[in-house]
């Protein structure tokens, strides 16, 4: 048996290529652009409602070179990263403790659910009074948005830790900290990362909502500016930028996932 190497036929090469995440993402992007251009040409909507890709690209370059886009983008980025970090860490922490105590979970979860269903606008004055009109209240809103999906997936992930392995750890007299590090963390990681995927995407929305409620910086504010000045191309630039931000965060988590969960890949026969 010497012919164990897989020959690189064109078909195999194509398969390899399409299994690469970024290749498909780029294809999807191109597809989307073409669709947009077609829509624009067919529907003949006024530019105010649907600008052409070229117009938006133009606006993108202008707002990039004027520093406008970067200024607002960096502000939103900061909010999103802080919010994601704070929200998901707190969620993971709380999730861990809740999973250890059924009565604590039963006591706390009504609050959590309630806190998730309050629209930000309803409590905006209270937020401003308590946390000021600065970046803090936006990061708070963003953290709150991230919090819940990460928390629930932490709880579910920890519950799914195999009982057999818990027994193994106990038979090895592992401390709670060791059990967390060596068993619970890796075992609940797949589900936790799923929560983080949702959380990262929502964090962008959270930051934008915070900015829309009251702010003078960030991509959410830029959307408002564009809408207020009937500059739809600017709105598109802001929206596409935040889409890209969300996609980048998502991609990063997928990358992390494929690194951390490499053990899940099942070896094929040659």
């Amino acid at each position, binding site marked *: *048996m*010497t*012919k*164990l190497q897989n020959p690189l036929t064109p078909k195999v090469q194509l398969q390899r290529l399409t299994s690469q995440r970024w290749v498909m993402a780029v294809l999807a992007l191109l597809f989307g652009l073409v669709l947009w251009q077609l829509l624009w040409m067919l529907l003949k909507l006024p530019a105010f409602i649907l600008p052409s890709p070229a117009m938006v690209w133009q606006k993108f370059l202008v707002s990039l070179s004027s520093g406008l886009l970067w200024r607002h983008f960096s502000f939103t980025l900061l909010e999103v990263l802080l919010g994601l970090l704070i929200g998901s860490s707190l969620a993971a922490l709380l999730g861990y403790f809740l999973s250890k105590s059924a009565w604590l979970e039963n006591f706390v979860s009504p609050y959590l659910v309630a806190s998730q269903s309050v629209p930000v606008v309803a409590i905006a004055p209270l937020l401003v009074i308590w946390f000021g009109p600065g970046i803090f209240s936006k990061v708070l809103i963003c953290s709150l948005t991230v919090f819940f999906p990460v928390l629930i997936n932490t709880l579910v992930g920890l519950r799914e830790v195999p*009982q057999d392995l818990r027994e193994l750890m106990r038979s090895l007299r592992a401390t709670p900290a060791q059990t967390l590090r060596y068993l619970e963390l890796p075992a609940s990681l797949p589900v936790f990362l799923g929560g983080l995927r949702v959380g990262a995407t929502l964090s962008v929305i959270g930051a934008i909502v915070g900015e829309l409620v009251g702010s003078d910086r960030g991509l959410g504010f830029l959307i408002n500016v564009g809408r207020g000045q009937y500059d739809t191309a600017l709105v598109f630039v802001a929206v596409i930028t935040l889409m890209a931000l969300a996609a980048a965060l998502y991609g990063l988590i997928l990358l992390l996932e494929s690194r951390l969960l490499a053990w899940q890949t099942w*070896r094929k*026969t*040659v």
Partner: protein
Amino acid sequence: MPSSPKIALEVRGLSIAFVETDGSLEVLDNLSFTVEVNSFVCVIGPSGGGKSTLLRALSGLLTPSAGEIRFPHPSHIGPQTGMVFQKPNLMPWRTLFDNISLPLELAGRSKEEIQQATQEMIDLVGLHGFEKSYPHELSGGMAQRVAIARSLVQDPEILLLDEPFGQLDALTRERMGEELLRIWGERRKTVLMVTHSISEAIYLADRVLVMTRRPAQISLDLPITLPRPRTEEMRYQPEFGRLAQLVHEQLSQNDDAMAMPTKSKVA
């Protein structure tokens, strides 16, 4: 023994290698053998030798790297194999009863039929009273018996058994062996069974295949000419001892050839 040597299973030049980061691990190397219809064949070989890999290839779970597997017997519309995995592989959300009845549900049998056939199997493997237990409430041996019952309940043409009795105590093991022989005798199945017990192999089989270390080949194809039905006394007859001796020697030889098993790779 079946009078006309019809072939149930034909393996020709079967090679299987797993992709590894730094090359590939050859597990089976150019394996060829046939199994006659209604025969009972036992496979014996070293741990990590490739027995489970062979069975998984036979039941279509692995694509061979080279060679072919055929089920030439005309009565087989498609390969109707039933498999007992080395692990019990029970569904944790199904009760014992529902785990055993799974193949029947998949086959779309009627409620009554399922109820009856499953209950029969449960009684056969001595698990009456545990119908509503979940897998995590069963002992190791009980779980294994559930797996055996699940493979038998579907009444397949070819039974592939991967160490089905590994976690059973001596008595239960003997009883399960007897039951298997009875079912095989009554319903005339083709059985290919992996076992680690030499005496069990000889007691049950028409033929014993001894496999070498990885990459595995068949080093001995031993017909067991003991008459059927087999009895407990046969175990103490010289012929039985001679056969056991042969298998044991062959295994030791294979073993000596590479005193400490290490991994060999094809880069």
